[in-house]
């Protein structure tokens, strides 16, 4: 998809109005600094999105690998001269940048591909960020050991808590950034809410004796699955499908009822003198063509409705309507208490 002159000019005008020294824009080097997680994420950003972006704008892309906490700290540490032009953030930290006025609002005029993305992927951040892909939570399981996988979250927790899967269950630890969301999600599937997380903690306390390891990073979860140290555990769909496609034939994945937790990666445009170009970067991230290549590599589902998936993988894709995320502001408020409870009840 090409950028219309109108949209590009609108972006340029918006950024120009914000830039304190607009005359310097032309003097800047033609490099846009963006972010990515490492490994195959970085590989996909570099090979699928960056060339198209460079072709459209003439700007080279410099990718800073790392994680949202590091990038947000870098931006917040130098608010008048942020070292990043666009950032792939976490759900909560995206709000932090938004609240501190360090990122810009995305509109269909500035980011034309936004009109093909369901509102649920940018509304949580009032359009100050848009997720170009989503992961869905579920359970991976060793199908040679577990012939009847659970159908729902309450069933999974009940069977795991009774020791039906042995001490071969794995769940994220509180060291993992998404665990507070997981706690909320588990609670919500059992009648709880952000104000009442008791159902989740009660279930987790029962499951605890059967946990082989509470993992701290998703890569660790992959290792536990591949080494068969865990027969069943919580993980994102894309990671499990990628392992299955890489030859782990004993693995399977199931999304459990009633809902799956979304893993979203809001892309944000940082207030810099290159914001106009950064809008185009976010637009490229939402472009159907590179998104399809990205999906084939990462297995996380693109949010752009225009992406045409291969028929073989259609069954793997969770309809966006089945995914949920918590109220992020509410979650941010209760996260310290979730950590406190986890430390006392799960680690204690």
């Amino acid at each position, binding site marked *: 998809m090409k950028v219309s002159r109108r949209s590009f000019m609108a972006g340029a005008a918006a950024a120009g109005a914000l830039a304190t020294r607009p005359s310097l824009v032309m003097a800047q080097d033609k490099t846009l600094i963006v972010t990515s997680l490492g490994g195959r994420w970085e590989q996909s950003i570099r090979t699928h999105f960056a060339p198209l972006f460079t072709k459209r704008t003439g700007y080279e892309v410099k990718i800073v690998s790392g994680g949202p906490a590091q990038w947000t700290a870098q931006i917040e540490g130098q608010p008048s001269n942020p070292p990043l032009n666009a950032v792939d953030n976490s759900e909560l930290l995206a709000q932090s940048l938004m609240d501190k006025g360090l990122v810009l609002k995305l509109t269909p005029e500035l980011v034309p591909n936004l009109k093909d993305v369901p509102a649920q992927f940018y509304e949580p951040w009032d359009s100050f960020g848009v997720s170009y892909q989503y992961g869905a939570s579920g359970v991976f399981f060793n199908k040679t050991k577990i012939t009847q996988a659970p159908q729902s979250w309450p069933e999974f927790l009940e069977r795991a808590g009774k020791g039906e899967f042995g001490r071969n269950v794995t769940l994220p630890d509180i060291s993992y950034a998404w665990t507070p969301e997981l706690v909320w999600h588990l609670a919500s599937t059992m009648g709880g809410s952000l104000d009442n997380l008791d159902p989740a903690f009660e279930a987790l306390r029962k499951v605890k004796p059967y946990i082989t390891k509470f993992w701290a990073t998703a890569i660790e979860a992959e290792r536990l699955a591949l080494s*068969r140290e865990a027969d069943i555990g919580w993980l994102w769909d894309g990671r499990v499908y990628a392992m299955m496609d890489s030859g782990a034939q004993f693995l399977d994945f199931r999304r459990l009822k009633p809902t799956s937790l979304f893993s979203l990666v809001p892309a944000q445009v940082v207030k810099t003198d290159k914001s106009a170009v950064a809008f185009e970067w976010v637009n490229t991230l939402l472009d159907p063509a590179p998104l399809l290549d990205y999906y084939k590599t990462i297995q996380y589902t693109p949010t752009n409705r225009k992406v045409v998936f291969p028929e073989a993988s259609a069954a793997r894709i969770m309809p966006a309507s089945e995914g949920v995320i918590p109220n992020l502001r509410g979650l941010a408020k209760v996260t310290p208490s979730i950590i406190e409870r986890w430390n006392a009840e799960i680690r204690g």
Partner: protein
Amino acid sequence: MSTATGASQAAVASRRPRFRAQRHALLGMPLAGLMLVGYVLPLVLVLGVSLGDGTGQRPFASGLSIAKYVAQFQSPYVWRVIVFTLVVSAAIAVFNALLAYPMALFLARSRSRWRGLAFLVSFTPLAVGMNMLTIGWLIMLGKTGVINAVLQGLGITNEPVSLVYGVTAVAIGLVHVSFTFMLLPIESVLRGIDPLLERAARSLGASPARAFATVTLPLSLEGVAAGMLIVFMQSCGAFVIPLFLGGTGTVMLPVAIWEQMTVANDWPAGAVLAITLTALALAVLAIQLRFFNPLRGAGQP
């Protein structure tokens, strides 16, 4: 004339130590600069963050407050993590000293042809690095790992034994990764002790064990103390090993700092723990310098 020459020589002689001191100071400038930029300045900034309320975008941007210190030190969990970090690190230092001393003695005293190989082996933790070493221990100790395969293969156990994700695995990993740092100072000190001293003790009737215990061991304690300090500080700051080899009950301070910053998004709380960790390390360093400072008394008759 001779008086003038004498005065001039005296002036030159009095200036010489000053020139020497200035030259030495210049030699230390690169390291001092590096420490200033890479350690002191970041430490001041972290201190600033720890005293903020988290609403400012920069250290010292908001008003100074010790509220986060009070909140953190009122938490029983934080105290548990601090005590666990200190106890584990101290235990690793002691255990490592016991392991490394015989090896250091062998390297310092032996003329064996295996000495070179032993040196090489003792350097492998440094060559391999902490991440690879951690993965290696996961492969060895894991439920589907080498040790469990051997135990089950020999019929010693029917089910996999839980060897990893606990304090034992963390201790094994930390001892392994820090072994070289314990070995080298001890070996260096032992090599500097004249073997004739021990021989003199034996010629006066002391048994080999008594000669070692009363001559060599006391003289080598400086190396042991230096090694224990390094290992203690390294263990206190360990992140990867407790995270991957440990379990729910083995959280050490660096992991707690990580959680505050990445999960709770509470940078001031994370900074409080980081300052605490630094203060503990500096306190132990001060104790070591007080009692085992090799430079103390240097240059004195």
